[in-house]
């Protein structure tokens, strides 16, 4: 009697373990091939509906009334990160027409087409800062003079500051495209000496 009960309980534990293990192995991509790419990669979920994301309380009935980001984004141009939306392109292609002035529906942004080149250490491509894309949605006073001194060469910017939420990092990383998108800012490729004594060349404008 005791033996059967032990055998029964062991078989239950074994069955549960096998069931779980099978689930776990099936869920992992590349389980069949141990040398597949991205062994430790967990696919990140984007544009989750409010009731399923990390912030909203799924127990609240009103949360179900809120719009799902994926629904709003389906007609907008795509990008690789952040909201997965290319917001600048969306404005340029008039997919969205953000209101510029609450008191005047006819008011339009006055974009300023001025590029600022920031020379960067080493072989990292220089940053070309385009005023145009920023002035489509922002006012001069949003950045000047509190965040950036409006004078070329007067701003000492480092990636450490940006990652700590200063300078460009006030927006980039929080609401504008994240810092991992290096080449969207570091665009101006340069050819510099990689060895001592080699002639230094630069195509800085």
């Amino acid at each position, binding site marked *: 009697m005791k033996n059967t009960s032990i055998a029964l309980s062991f078989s239950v534990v074994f069955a*549960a373990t096998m069931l779980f293990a099978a689930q776990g192995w099936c869920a992992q991509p590349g389980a069949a091939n141990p040398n597949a790419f991205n062994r430790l990669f967990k696919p990140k979920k984007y544009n*989750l509906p409010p009731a399923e994301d*990390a*912030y909203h309380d799924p127990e609240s009935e009103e949360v179900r009334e809120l719009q799902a980001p994926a629904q709003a984004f389906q007609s907008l141009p795509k990008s690789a990160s952040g909201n997965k*939306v290319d917001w600048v392109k969306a404005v340029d292609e008039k997919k969205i027409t953000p209101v510029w002035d609450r008191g005047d529906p006819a008011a339009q942004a006055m974009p300023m087409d001025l590029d600022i080149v920031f020379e960067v250490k080493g072989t990292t491509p220089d940053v070309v800062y385009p005023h145009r894309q920023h002035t489509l949605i922002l006012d001069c006073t949003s950045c000047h003079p509190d965040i950036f001194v409006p004078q070329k060469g007067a701003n000492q910017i480092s990636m450490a500051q940006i990652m700590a939420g200063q300078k460009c990092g006030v*927006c980039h990383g929080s*609401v504008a495209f994240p810092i991992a998108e290096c080449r969207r800012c570091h665009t101006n490729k340069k050819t510099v000496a990689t060895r001592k004594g080699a002639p230094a060349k630069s195509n800085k404008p």
Partner: protein
Amino acid sequence: MSQSFSTSIPRKFALAGMLFLAMMLGRVEFAAAEFGDIVINNFSDGVGMRPVVFPHWFHRVRFACKVCHTDLGFAMKAGGNQLDMAKILEGQFCGACHDGTTAWATERCALCHSGRAGMPNQVNRNKDPKLTEAAPAPAKK
């Protein structure tokens, strides 16, 4: 014999169940927040309301950044405005649009107060004090 039969099976079943549950729990993946969503919890927890979740994406489709960050004076820091309902009912900050005309009025509490309880001010699940302003200490009576 009969005693061991009556006690051993439930215990083993409970053990199996617990083992199974623990394994399932270990597999739970924590969901992401939408990029740019801000949690504002200056006073909400203290008065038993859910914290506010502000979706940047919804607002930037409709308004230029400048409308709120220049015209309405919103600081560019999570929790940086020390928002309370008195300011909003006066028509400042959110209250400039959330008046029942441009956007839902303040009676629809739970549409904004929609977050999980107990979350501090934060952006993109990042609670770094460099990016966020801590909630003010509760007023003493």
